[in-house]
């Protein structure tokens, strides 16, 4: 067996794929959050629309987008496959399991990930499909900012988005530092810093994301 297929077929290799795609998705989140946070300038979406326009038309970004989808699909499928394999390894479950030895969210990455995936389908339909596959925005009938206002005027959508950001927060809370552990990037001096960074990243980012629908729904952003 050649080294690469051996690597990718091993449990560790599968996890390394999870870690790499996870970190890649994290980098996307950072950009996504950065651009979207432009709405908080409360300038009627002017800056945000400019940013969105750039992201939607720049060739490099569009290319990376393909990679992003590939990464997302790989992360999801591999993740679910690992859940399946891991279930098989613990074929009989315990009658009593105290669970105090680890956090609930570290043991629920599959569930949290699935919730995020369901959210993403809805989220993509709301914005990505609208901006790419209809002429609503390219045709100048509306702007992405206005589209946000429309989508976030529905209470259930806002609640769903906020709930999903909790899933995201917990998924990141474990996933961020776990990716470094899986890639073997640990060091007595730097690991504590990575853990701290991961912690704040996992709180601040979903918080900002969650504030977007909330702000729009409550009319804080005009």
């Amino acid at each position: 067996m050649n080294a690469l297929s051996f690597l990718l077929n091993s449990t560790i290799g599968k996890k390394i794929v999870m870690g790499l795609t996870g970190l890649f998705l994290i980098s996307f989140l950072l950009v996504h959050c950065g651009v979207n946070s432009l709405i908080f300038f409360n300038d009627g979406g002017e800056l945000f629309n400019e940013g969105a326009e750039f992201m939607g038309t720049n060739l490099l970004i569009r290319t990376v987008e393909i990679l992003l989808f590939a990464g997302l699909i790989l992360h999801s499928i591999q993740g679910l496959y690992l859940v399946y394999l891991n279930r098989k390894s613990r074929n009989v479950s315990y009658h009593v399991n105290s669970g105090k030895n680890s956090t609930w969210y570290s043991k629920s990455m599959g569930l949290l990930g699935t919730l995020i995936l369901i959210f993403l389908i809805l989220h993509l339909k709301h914005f990505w499909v609208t901006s790419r596959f209809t002429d609503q925005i390219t045709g100048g009938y509306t702007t992405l900012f206005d589209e946000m206002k429309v989508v976030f005027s529905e209470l259930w959508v806002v609640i769903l988005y906020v709930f999903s950001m909790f899933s995201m927060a917990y998924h990141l809370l474990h996933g961020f530092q776990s990716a470094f552990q899986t890639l073997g990037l640990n060091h007595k001096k730097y690991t504590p810093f990575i853990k701290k960074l991961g912690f704040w990243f996992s709180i601040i980012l979903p918080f900002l994301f969650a504030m977007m629908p909330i702000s729009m729904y409550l009319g804080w952003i005009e």
Partner: protein
Amino acid sequence: MSGNMNLTLKVWRQKNSSDKGRFETYKMQDISPDMSFLEMFDVLNEQLINTGEEPVVFDHDCREGICGMCSMYINGRPHGPKDAITTCQLHMRSFKDGDIIVVEPWRAAAFPVLKDLAVDRSAFDRIIAAGGFVSVNTGNAQDGNNLPISKVDADEAFASAACIGCGACVAACKNASAMLFVSAKVNQLSILPQGKPERMQRVRAMVAQMDKEGFGACTNTGACSAECPKEISLSNIAALNREFLMANLIDQEG
């Protein structure tokens, strides 16, 4: 004696590996807090023998926390409610009068139940046989002091080598992953200069065997280390991941 306890035990009973198994409830009376958990099981078995029932089969040997043979999942935790000890070191003073104690065997596809609470952990031996050694025949050795090893490295290698192979890590992990066990051995031998020449081969062989045995993947929940009676550190797992990645990506022989 004052301070003695009455307890209810719910113990997993299973005739053999093909039996479905079930819980049985036993009342234990007048249990001294100075008794070890396994001594309480001795008392139970004595009772069972005297009433003509089959005693509970459980693995145990040294009863001083080093052989790694004892293996009970007690009230939802491997080796019971206290940290950093084995079942044989658990004493009844950690329980109180009236407690209900549920005792199960290790649960993992790679550790099939043999009978009652005894499981087959030979998968661990096969992992070591695949590469958990330094290939040095008797008589090959040079003087022990010809290889200076810094105290830091020696101490770290020792901390990893302290693993007793009990399998609590696998039992605790929701994925029944053996990564802590494997990483402890890989890391011990890759820190020491003696183990370096074949470190790449070693990690590939051991991980391949680990996967073959049907242990799950590590999802870094940390349950293994939290339940490890010898407190083997999670940093071993990171080191294993790194070692494995290097062995496959960089090593030209891989």
